[in-house]
């Protein structure tokens, strides 16, 4: 019962937030990716640039390589936009499942009517800090064509950054007494470990193109920060509202007396 409610709410919240963020990205993030891919093509066209550009890629996993000619990829234009929309909605559903589960746990353990669209905004903002801001501090948003450290190392660090930030913020917010300051140490841990980096993100390009890629990277960081903030605030407020509207009645049937809610 409770699980079904959480999943249905996550589907509803995820679809709405996914559609919203797709509209926002279509207007400000996608044009930057398209511009970067024009430059990315210019580096691949040059014989000399290819070794430098691919060296940084993760060749141990050839199947995952973006330049794998055999792999299916959507046609540019409508097909690609539709797949981006689908991926955005699926990602938002995944995020909603975790967020709604967290807000449900919070409401249940506090034993009161704390979930709401407004408190959900705080959850959304906290989630944006954990899932976007914290990993971005170590691995800044990258436009296509950026050379970077091995994929596995970056994915592992991303996961460490998100888990440490989420645990650290939770400890700061919910653990009573002096123990809560341990949360600060958890927040700092990913940066003490250090994110995987290589030098020369745009070494494969001519100086002029590299400069333009750097400008695009700056614009991309701002655009993605805004679009993901909009996504997480929408996810948070919708999730808070959905928990209050649909999950709260399911929690009430778990053996909590009706008087507890009066």
């Amino acid at each position, binding site marked *: 019962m409770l699980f079904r409610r959480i999943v249905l709410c996550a589907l509803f919240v995820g679809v709405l937030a996914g559609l919203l963020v797709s509209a926002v990205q279509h207007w400000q993030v996608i044009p930057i*990716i398209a511009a970067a891919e024009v430059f990315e093509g210019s580096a691949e066209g040059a014989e000399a640039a290819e070794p430098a550009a691919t060296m940084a890629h993760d060749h141990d996993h050839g199947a995952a390589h*973006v330049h*794998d000619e055999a792999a299916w990829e959507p046609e540019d234009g409508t097909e690609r936009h539709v797949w981006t929309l689908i*991926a955005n909605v699926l990602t938002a559903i995944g995020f909603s499942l975790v967020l709604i589960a967290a807000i449900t*746990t919070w409401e249940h353990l*506090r*034993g009161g009517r704390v979930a709401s669209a407004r408190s959900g905004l705080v959850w959304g903002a906290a989630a944006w800090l954990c899932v976007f801001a914290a990993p971005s501090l170590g691995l800044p948003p990258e436009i296509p064509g950026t050379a970077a450290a091995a*994929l596995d190392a970056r994915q592992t660090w991303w996961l460490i950054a998100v888990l440490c930030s989420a645990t650290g913020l939770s400890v700061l917010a919910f653990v009573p007494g002096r123990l809560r300051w341990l949360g600060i140490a958890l927040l700092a841990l990913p940066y003490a470990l250090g994110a995987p980096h290589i030098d020369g993100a745009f070494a494969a390009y001519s100086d002029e193109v590299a400069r333009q890629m750097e400008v695009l990277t700056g614009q991309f960081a701002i655009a993605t920060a805004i679009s993901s903030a909009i996504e997480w605030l929408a996810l948070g407020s919708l999730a808070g509202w959905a928990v209050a509207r649909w999950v709260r009645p399911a929690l009430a049937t778990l053996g909590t007396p009706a008087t507890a809610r009066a």
Partner: protein
Amino acid sequence: MQQQATLQIARPKSALLAIAMPVLTAVLLGAVIVYGVGFSHIAAAHNAAHDTRHSNVFPCH
């Protein structure tokens, strides 16, 4: 009685057990979906979700 005592303060620890399974399953399901879209090494999954991965700062390529 026990239930009334929980009115003013947090519910007892067993309250966590009552929701642990559905909540943890939901978190796991969410993580699997985000992994599939954002982190899977399958080339087709990467290409389909390419712009989403870049926009969400999921490590890509």
